[in-house]
């Protein structure tokens, strides 16, 4: 456990996970989750798990943000319509 690289990666994961919870707006949270995915992939690489890191990169960098952003758009749309009618 004397590897500073592992400590830095772990701290980055802890920090971005905390930020992902603290950011309350779903669209902004999706941005933090994208960064969390990238940081997790780096941590997995440092822990010598390149297969898991590839998985995390493939899922975390584009797929999860796309799913969340599409849901946000769908949930927000009726509200926008109401505002337009006003």
């Amino acid at each position, binding site marked *: 456990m004397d590897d500073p690289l592992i400590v830095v990666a772990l701290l980055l994961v802890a920090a971005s996970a905390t930020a992902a919870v603290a950011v309350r707006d*779903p669209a902004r949270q999706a941005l933090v989750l994208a960064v969390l995915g990238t940081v997790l992939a780096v941590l997995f690489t440092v822990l010598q798990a*390149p*297969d898991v890191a590839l998985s995390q990169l493939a899922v975390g960098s584009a797929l*999860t943000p796309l799913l969340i952003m599409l849901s946000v758009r769908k949930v927000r749309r009726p509200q926008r319509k109401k505002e337009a009618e006003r």
Partner: protein
Amino acid sequence: MSVFPYLVAAWVFLVGCYGLVTSRNLIHAVGCLAVCQSSTYVLLLAVGYRDGATAPVFSDLKPGSRPVVDPVVQALALTDVVVGATVTAVLLALVLQISKLHGTVDPDELSELRG
């Protein structure tokens, strides 16, 4: 120092749970659940790590030339990352249904609706 990675995994899990409980938006809650999920990967891979070792992938490595980390936990985490994303999709689909039926995604407003 030899428990620090485990403590980080525990912290990430607890933070995710805190977010789930206090969330005012179901989409945000699903995001917090994704944070909880990622803590399990950190824990699994930390358990399988070995000091000074490298990945047990022998396409560019002579078998036996360097110590390798535990592949079993990696195989567990790998499949779960992808399957977890599709489960997130199901949860988001449920949130969309709730939003269509009730016009809100705030869990507190939803429990008021139920009466």
